């Protein structure tokens, strides 16, 4: 048997039920069909059940009057506004807690992670215990503990605990002094901004200096010094101080003036921060320990101080290890912020539950809320992946 030229016998001889290319297509079509059939079955049940119960699918309700008040609102909102606006308030609250929580948890986590590796035995033990307790108890238990057993047991407003710096702590939350802008604020900001722009220009020229080797005046330093000078001079030059500190004053029933953090907000923020910081601390510790000991010894041999060794030698190398797990901790923090419902802080999930109960249309509300969380998660991981790529470039 000789093969005729031009005829591919390999393919001709394989029957279709053994042809890998055909089998692949068949398997994929079967998988998609199975999933589609399952979804269709579930969807069919859903449509039947919803029509039986008189539920509708649609987002039209978002334009209806919400009719419920939201105590903590970052934007003007009242009960007469629409569900759409209530949703927006919830979203903003989630983002606010998420961003603030991520910042604070990172700071605390790095401090604890470094302290975990301290030479001091007591510091090592105390931070170790903190990490183990936080990691081995549920966040929800911690939140209930913090809210019901600690924050709500504080004295009433009239007997607030006065902390240094006009900070008052009571059942009703934390009251802080707030900076207040005076008419001189605008011009002062403009002045400082001009000097800062000069400093930014300095960065560009210094990049050029590095590229070309040509000497340029140190614009960056001149700009920074200018900004500092302008800030100081401007503070006095405009007659009135551009920023004044407004201190909270205890009135008849509550504090007025200054800034306030409600008890639910304080509970969810502190709870998320101290919980996530324990996980971040472990990530940081792992990252630092992954930097070879010789690097530290070499840095010390060069005469760098302990702080400089950490800042200039250890951290830049540890970051490569730290960033990916840190990303998942950030994602966890944002997702865990949905537990705000436990302490009554009106975040996305709590507003969603209220909306679902009031409109009697749980299905679109659930889709909306889950979709929003998914979008937040995606954006967070995109940002962190971009940062990760920047850090990884340092690798040699």
């Amino acid at each position, binding site marked *: 048997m000789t093969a005729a030229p031009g005829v591919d016998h390999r393919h001709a001889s394989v029957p279709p039920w053994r042809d890998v290319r055909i089998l692949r297509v068949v*398997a*994929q079509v079967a998988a998609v069909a199975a999933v589609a059939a399952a979804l269709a079955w579930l969807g069919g049940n859903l449509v039947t059940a919803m029509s039986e119960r008189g539920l509708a699918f649609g987002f039209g309700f978002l334009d209806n009057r919400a009719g419920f008040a939201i105590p903590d609102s970052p934007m003007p909102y009242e009960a007469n506004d629409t569900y759409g606006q209530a949703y927006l308030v919830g979203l903003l609250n989630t983002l606010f807690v998420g961003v603030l929580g991520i910042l604070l948890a990172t700071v605390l986590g790095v401090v604890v992670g470094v302290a975990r590796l301290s030479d*001091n035995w007591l510091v090592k033990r105390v931070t170790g215990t903190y990490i183990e307790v936080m990691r*081995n108890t*549920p966040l929800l*238990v911690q939140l209930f503990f913090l809210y019901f057993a600690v924050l709500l047991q504080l004295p009433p407003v009239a007997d607030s605990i006065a902390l240094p710096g006009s900070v008052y702590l009571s059942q009703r939350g934390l009251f802080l002094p707030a900076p207040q802008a005076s008419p001189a604020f605008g011009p002062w900001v403009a002045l400082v901004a001009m000097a800062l722009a000069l400093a930014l220009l300095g960065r560009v020229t210094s990049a050029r200096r590095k590229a070309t080797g040509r000497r340029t005046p140190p614009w960056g330093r001149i700009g920074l010094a200018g900004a500092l000078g302008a800030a100081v001079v401007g503070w006095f030059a405009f007659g009135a101080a551009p920023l004044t500190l407004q201190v909270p004053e205890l009135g008849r029933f509550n504090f007025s003036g200054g800034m306030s953090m409600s008890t639910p907000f304080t509970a969810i923020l502190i709870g998320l921060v101290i919980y996530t910081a324990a996980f971040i601390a472990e990530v940081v510790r792992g990252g630092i320990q992954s930097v070879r000991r010789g690097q530290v010894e070499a840095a010390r041999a060069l005469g760098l101080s302990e702080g400089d060794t950490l800042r200039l030698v250890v951290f830049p190398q540890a970051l490569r290890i730290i960033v990916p797990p840190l990303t998942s901790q950030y994602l966890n923090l944002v997702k865990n912020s949905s537990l705000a419902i436990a302490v009554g802080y009106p975040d996305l*999930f709590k507003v969603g539950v209220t909306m679902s109960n009031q409109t009697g249309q749980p299905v679109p509300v659930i889709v909306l809320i889950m979709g929003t*969380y998914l979008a937040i998660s995606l954006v967070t991981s995109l940002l962190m992946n971009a940062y990760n790529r920047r850090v990884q470039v340092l690798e040699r």
Partner: protein
Amino acid sequence: MSIETMAPPSTAVTPLEWMRRNLFSSIASSLTTGLIGGLLIWLAVNVGGWAIGEARWEVVGNNLRLFLVGQYPATEAWRLWLNLAVLSVMTGLSAAVFGSTTRTLAVSTSALQLLLALLIVPSPLGTLIPPTTSLVLGLLGNAAGVWAAFVAGRLLGPPRRWLMIGWLLTIPLTFVLVSGFGPLPEVRSTLWGGLLLTVLLAAVGIVLSFPLGVLLALGRRSGLPAVRVLSTAYIEIIRGVPLVTILFMADIMLPLLLPGEFRIDRVARAMGGITLFSAAYVAENVRGGLQAIPMGQYEAAHALGLGSLATNLFVVLPQALRSVIPANVGLFISLLKDTTLVTIVGLLELLGIGRAILAQPQSLGAHLEVYVFIAAAFFVLCYAMSQASYRLERTMGLGSR
């Protein structure tokens, strides 16, 4: 030139020298030690004083039953004991039969069971035995069961396959014993509560989600684009949303998604939600294990003429699943903690029952006592298991094999 023999330098450190090195090595270190030491003493005095003097621990003591099994009827409590006994025997046998690598896991699970025995106080004879006696009896009985089974396993050496079948049988057995079937009177899931429900939710979650997770992991690494996209989409969507939203969805949408004649109670809905949730995380763990299998294993299997199904079943999965045991123990720990979220959809697991107890007039204001107790229970369980999983990871010598 002669070589003088010298004793090695002494490594023993006097307590004073130890303190100088570890607590007062520099001025900054000494200051920190003083500051933290002072704070710790202040805390110890205050917290200790509260715990001994003011705390109303009787709120916990009087409600121990509720904390442990919820409203599970006292007359049926013997079924839980029997279930624990079966688990102890299986654990002891497995520890004896499987090699030293699995022994750590066996020890850890038996530690978990010991703790359960310690905590599942309601005595088999209703209220005849006082709780403390019943507690000691349960603890000792369980320990005795584990060790008797261990010795028996050493002597008899039952085949591994029987043990695997035995473990698979314990799953339906647990269900039958806890919920009742046939001659056993039914205990409705609305009566399950406390630690019993917490552990059940986590165990059911991990057991049911395991096969689903393995399939998803294989799907995500499949060479077929459509399968890969579907698996990846499921995993990433589930991992991108909080568990509470999934529980909320399961609570409201599962009854709508299933045909009308299907009635599923709240506990089953929560189990469904937890299973769907943890499947995505199991899948990611398993994927890690799959990625650790060298290509040579696949190639060797293909060279032997195995198809892709046989390759996965007999070559890849046994190795991959073995290496993800520690990661899955970690997942079980976090699942155990996450079951507290079912409180938000109204179930009375350990935290939920704590809140219900706090609503009773006689325990009003005992927030600290109740939450400290719940946190301590979780801490003991999770810490023991995390230490076991850590040791397991080392004894299995992951990555060095």
